[in-house]
């Protein structure tokens, strides 16, 4: 990518029209960020100062990226960045109310992630990532095993790796690596998968050798569920694989068969391992132990109800007192402080981001990138659904984080990098 004087000249003469929609939406996002952070930190003093410091920095970061795109003549989608920016603004708003130090740290991660976006969005070589699918897959899996064996345990799940002073959650990186792996093998073999030849009763099923990936994914699912005690990631990896195979082949059997196997695996695991069963019991009846295992979900229900239609006002919620509220319950904090009418736009933004991502992925002409885009979108949507659905008791509580909103450095950087990939895919381009 060459940024020369001529491109600047081109921008100054006619380019201001470029990416106009993105610019307008980003202005709105910046205003929301400054206002949101100011309002939620107004009880701790220096509201406007903090609003400008945190919200303003996010706005400046987004605008820097935007102008960089303009200068580079980037032709990617104009809605993805503002939508993600809106979610980041919400994240800062919530964290500023919880603890300014956390919010500042989250801002650093956001800025780092935004700086990485061009690295993901501009190069035209990402399609060759498909060549490294096995490397990515093996790296992802070994990270997963490594974490399961040597990770640091926190709140009953082993999700953290500590290397010297650096502490990070490999799960997020593993998800991306796994996405590359699955997209790679599916785009390579999609023809084989698409024409099932074997029969099982009335159903056409793929030949046994093609079921091997599915079987290995199923084993992985059970491994994560049982050894790592991470129900959310287990469902996520597994559903990611099923949905991607379905999209790649168009065979409904790839949706039905994994669903049945997953259900079977879940029931088996629940009947053999008590900690898996506990998860389900809490889900079905949190009132059995409102001060023990069911504490988080019961408090969540109270917080949501106390929010009502309009909420208690930014910074006036009490959900922040629930343990792990900044990672697990940001949506509850929004629901409590801004009410149903505040939570709905947040969910809608997540939905629009996913819908937009789905659209740009579908439009992409390159088989691998298209599935990679889908992997990114599916990862986000599943996280949102499992995290928010867990809070609303639609599904068991999984401890998954909400992309762009929850506090977490690894997740923030990985998700912003993934957004860069989506932006890359969204370019109007003839792929090899």
């Amino acid at each position, binding site marked *: 990518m060459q940024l020369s004087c001529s491109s600047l000249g081109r921008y100054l003469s006619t380019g201001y029209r470029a990416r106009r929609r993105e610019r307008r939406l980003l202005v709105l996002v910046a205003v929301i960020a400054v206002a949101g952070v100011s*309002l939620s930190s107004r*009880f701790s003093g220096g509201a406007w100062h903090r609003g400008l410091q945190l919200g303003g920095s996010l706005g400046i970061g987004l605008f820097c990226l935007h102008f960089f795109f303009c200068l580079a003549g980037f032709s990617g989608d104009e809605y993805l960045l503002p939508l993600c920016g809106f979610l980041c603004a919400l994240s800062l708003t919530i964290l500023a109310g919880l603890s300014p130090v956390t919010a500042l740290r989250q801002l650093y991660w956001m800025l780092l992630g935004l700086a990485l976006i061009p690295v993901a969005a501009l190069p035209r070589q990402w399609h060759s990532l498909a060549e490294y699918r096995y490397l990515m897959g093996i790296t992802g899996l070994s990270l997963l095993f490594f974490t399961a064996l040597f990770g640091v345990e926190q709140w009953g799940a082993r999700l953290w790796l500590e290397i010297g002073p650096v502490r990070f959650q490999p799960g997020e990186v593993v998800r991306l690596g796994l996405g590359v792996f699955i997209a790679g093998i599916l785009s390579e073999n999609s023809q084989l998968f698409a024409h099932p030849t074997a029969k099982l009763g009335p159903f056409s099923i793929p030949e046994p050798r093609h079921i091997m990936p599915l079987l290995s994914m199923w084993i992985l699912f059970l491994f994560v569920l049982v050894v790592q005690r991470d129900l959310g990631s287990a469902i996520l990896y597994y559903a990611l694989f099923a*949905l991607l195979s*379905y*999209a790649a*082949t*168009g065979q409904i059997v790839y949706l039905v068969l994994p669903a049945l196997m997953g259900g079977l695996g879940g029931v088996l695991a629940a009947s053999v391992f008590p900690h898996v069963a506990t998860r389900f019991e809490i889900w079905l009846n949190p009132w059995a132990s*409102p001060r023990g295992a069911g504490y988080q979900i*019961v*408090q969540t*229900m*109270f*917080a*949501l*109800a*106390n*929010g*009502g*239609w*309009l909420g208690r*006002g930014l*910074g*006036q919620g*009490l959900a922040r*007192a629930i343990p792990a509220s900044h990672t697990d319950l940001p949506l509850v904090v929004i*629901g409590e402080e801004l*009410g*149903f009418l505040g*939570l*709905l736009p947040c*969910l*809608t933004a*997540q*939905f629009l981001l*996913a*819908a937009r991502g*789905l659209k740009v992925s*579908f439009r992409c002409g390159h088989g691998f990138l298209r599935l990679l885009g*889908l992997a990114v979108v599916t990862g986000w*949507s599943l996280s*949102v*659904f499992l995290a*928010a*659905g867990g809070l*609303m*008791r*639609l599904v068991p509580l999984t401890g998954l984080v909400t992309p762009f909103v929850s506090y977490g450095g690894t997740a923030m950087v990985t998700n912003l990098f993934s957004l860069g990939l989506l932006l890359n895919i969204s370019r109007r381009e003839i792929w090899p």
Partner: protein
Amino acid sequence: MRKPWVFLTYILMAGYLLLAAGAFYWQVGQREALVNHPSNPYRLMEHYRVRRGGIFASGGEVIAESLERENSFERVFGGTSGLAPTIGYFSRRYGTAGMEKAMDDLLMGRRYPGTSIIGRIRHLLSEPASGYDVITSIDLNLQRTVEQAFAGRKGAAVVMEVKTGRILAIASLPGFDPETVDSQWDKIISDVNSPLYNRALAGFYPPGSTFKIVVLAAALADGELDLTSTFDDPGTVTVEGHTIANAGGTAWGPITLLEALAVSSNVVFAETARKIGSDRLLEMARAFGLGRRPPLAGDNVGAGRLPAGVLSQLELAQMAIGQYGLVTTPLQMAMVVQAVANDGLMMEPMLVDAVKGPGEGSRWANRPRPMGYVVGVQTARQIRQAMAEVVTRGTGRSAALRGIDVGGKTGSAENPQGRAHAWFVGMAPVDQPAICLAVVVEHGGSGGSVAAPIARRILAAYFEGAGS
């Protein structure tokens, strides 16, 4: 390969709609149940953060207020014990009751008391450190007099300002000390005299002869009878095989309606009620608000009981003397005399004069609200004339004051639990009444000799205070 992508879009949409529906279910559908759930810690935490507003007498004296203690607040009570059932208590362990409960949202600063939109937005945007103060219409000196006048007897009294419906004093005796609710809960709730029970607002007493006011109103409003209509009173009357007798069996002979009220003739009023008929008598009782919950905030306001349907001759005769399943609260009887005293216009009873914000200059006054005319001006004046007669020459002589004409009606309500309840309802001065009251002494016996002197002391104190 378009199809799977379309299907995935549908799955995405379905997921989104499910989440939106889930949020709606918890935040709107289940809101009431969860907010009021006993283990919801939010209300409790709020009580450590927000200084609860105070409740004050109309003169500014503290009735209940929250004082700051080490990182918490203590609720202190400055009212009288007879006031406690109405004001209620505020306990972290046992919840709230009375006005503390009815006004909870204002006292905790959750609800904005005004109507201005800017004020509402400001209220939404601010985190209140303290709730709103409630200024009641209670005159604490008068309240003390009322309770002293009872001299330890059980019962209730309601004193109202005639023009506005403001409640100047409301006593339910025996009362309790709200500050001791936490420490002596078991003792309070196991007390046979049930001090937590608000006798003034929800005590159900047959009205006895005080109901004759309503019968008289129905008779006069009808126009067929007037105060000079004459009856023959042989001392007893037999209706459908049952005998209804005057107190002591006295035969008054030829007697006018006016005199009949003064001496509280059961025979005459039984005859009158039979003349008026079931429909019109019940209609008048309903117009006076009997059998209906008075429009006063709080869940401790009772509706009493008014028989419905067509009453037989015997039922009519029994109801005329305030028996036969008829049950009223002291507040309801105070409202009956208030309407008569106010030339027929009944006012909503008012316990709150104003709500005051934590800052200076924010005060929302409560306005008196008329409920409508129960009887015409002429009828009301005629009833007052008869009620004056009760005090000057009739059964209510012990309520008479020097220099001020008092009007009233006594009642001795028979009840299956024991001695009759002693009633006195009245107003003063009779020409242009300023205050009215209802006094009931539980199982006190004769209204004229037990309740009327209490009313006299209350009225005397009021006019002394007003004079000085």
